[in-house]
């Protein structure tokens, strides 16, 4: 069988494999195989074919993340989950939230909280979550003062 045909076959098999084993690892080799198939078709020796395969695979490996980030992230919305989801949410201060301690109710759950600048936030204040440290919310006043309703 011709060398280029073998490379092409290997590439297709690897790309099929990619469907079953996600992680983009077989696909990287697949691209390498396709490049090597071209080299074989142009009548280069086996050493050159392997070198082309290696180089292409390496290039694909290096460029996959930037390419993915540029092309695919446009179509893939970034959904924050778990702790990341809490950032930016508005909670309600249950007691005095100071730079040392405080309780904030967020989505029906009570969290230990601190204010980010050490200022004391009275109970009933609407607070915005800036980040989560340990299991504490770091919050700041949301600007609008909320009376107790």
């Amino acid at each position, binding site marked *: 069988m011709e060398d280029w045909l073998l490379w092409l076959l290997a590439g297709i098999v690897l790309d099929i494999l990619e469907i079953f084993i996600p992680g983009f*690892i077989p696909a990287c080799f697949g691209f390498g195989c396709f490049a090597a198939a071209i080299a074989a078709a142009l009548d280069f020796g086996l050493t050159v074919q*392997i070198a082309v395969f*290696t180089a292409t695979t*390496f290039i694909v490996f290096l460029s*996959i993340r930037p390419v993915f980030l540029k092309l695919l992230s446009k179509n893939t919305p970034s959904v924050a*989950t*778990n702790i990341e989801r809490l950032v930016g949410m508005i909670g309600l201060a249950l007691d005095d939230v100071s730079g040392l301690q405080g309780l904030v109710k967020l989505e029906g759950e009570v969290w230990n909280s601190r204010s980010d600048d050490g200022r004391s936030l009275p109970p009933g204040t609407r607070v915005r979550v800036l980040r989560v440290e*340990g*299991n504490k919310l770091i919050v700041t006043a949301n600007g609008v003062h909320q009376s107790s309703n």
Partner: protein
Amino acid sequence: MQPLHWFVLALAVLVIALVIRGLRIVQQAEVVIIERLGKYHTTLTSGINIIWPFFDKPRKIIWRFLVPGAGGEPASYILREMDRIDLRETVYDFPRQNVITADNVLIEINALLYFQITDPIKAVYEINNLPDAIEKLTQTSLRNIIGELSLDQTLTSRDTINQKLRILLDEATDKWGVRINRVELQDIMPPPDIRIAMEKQMRAERDRRAVILEAEGQKRAVILQAEGKREAQIAEAEGSKQSEILRADGEAGAIQRVANAEAEAIRAITKAVGDGGADPTKYLIALKYLDALKEMAGGNTNKVVFLPFEATGILSSLGGIKELLQEKA
């Protein structure tokens, strides 16, 4: 040609290894902690990531998985080292543990714990064997809190226990980057003799209520009956009073009329007798007397003849009659 060939082949193997170990796709709600030459380097978030396999290594975390028991056996746990750290809320179901309440009752409780890793770096670096640490901490804290409560309080104030426990655990687990969202007590099992006593108490309480209810019902019934009787008697008395008044009125009217008629008759007789010059009183007495005699002797079964006992009375009446006859004649 030959050495170059081998070199290229070796390079190819190296690149294959690099790609296999270097490309990391991290799923949503998971992170991977990467150490470069043993030192924390970065946290990989969801999406495709590249690491350098020669220098970078994911740091593993010990995680616990529930294995359903085969053939009716209780489910068990296995510990496994994972390089992906799950940030989702996780539930641990602890095995039963014995706890002593404030009133010295040994109870068995079964707690359920919901927790979530809020800071993967701390969860990896600040605590060894996180699942065990969480379990032991929860169990000892639970023992602590229940030790302050009596059995009855334990049974009724689950909510308070959960709240207290969560606050206690929150403080301890802050350092580990773990948040305990909820602690639930699944079962509270008092020892069998206490359970029997509780059942007895419950039954006695129900019996007590039943007896009270029955007695109250009877009381009401008796009161109602008495009230009914009273009302009936009042109504009856009122009825008879009314009827007697009416009857008396009727009789009075009748007597009045008879008297009126008699007076009229006497007047007429007086007038008639008086016109003849005789004494009308004597005539009337004689008339009455004869009437009375007639009545006494009357009746077909009466064979006895009544005679006035008083001779003077008879004589005077006879005298009166004679006088009448004389006068007429």
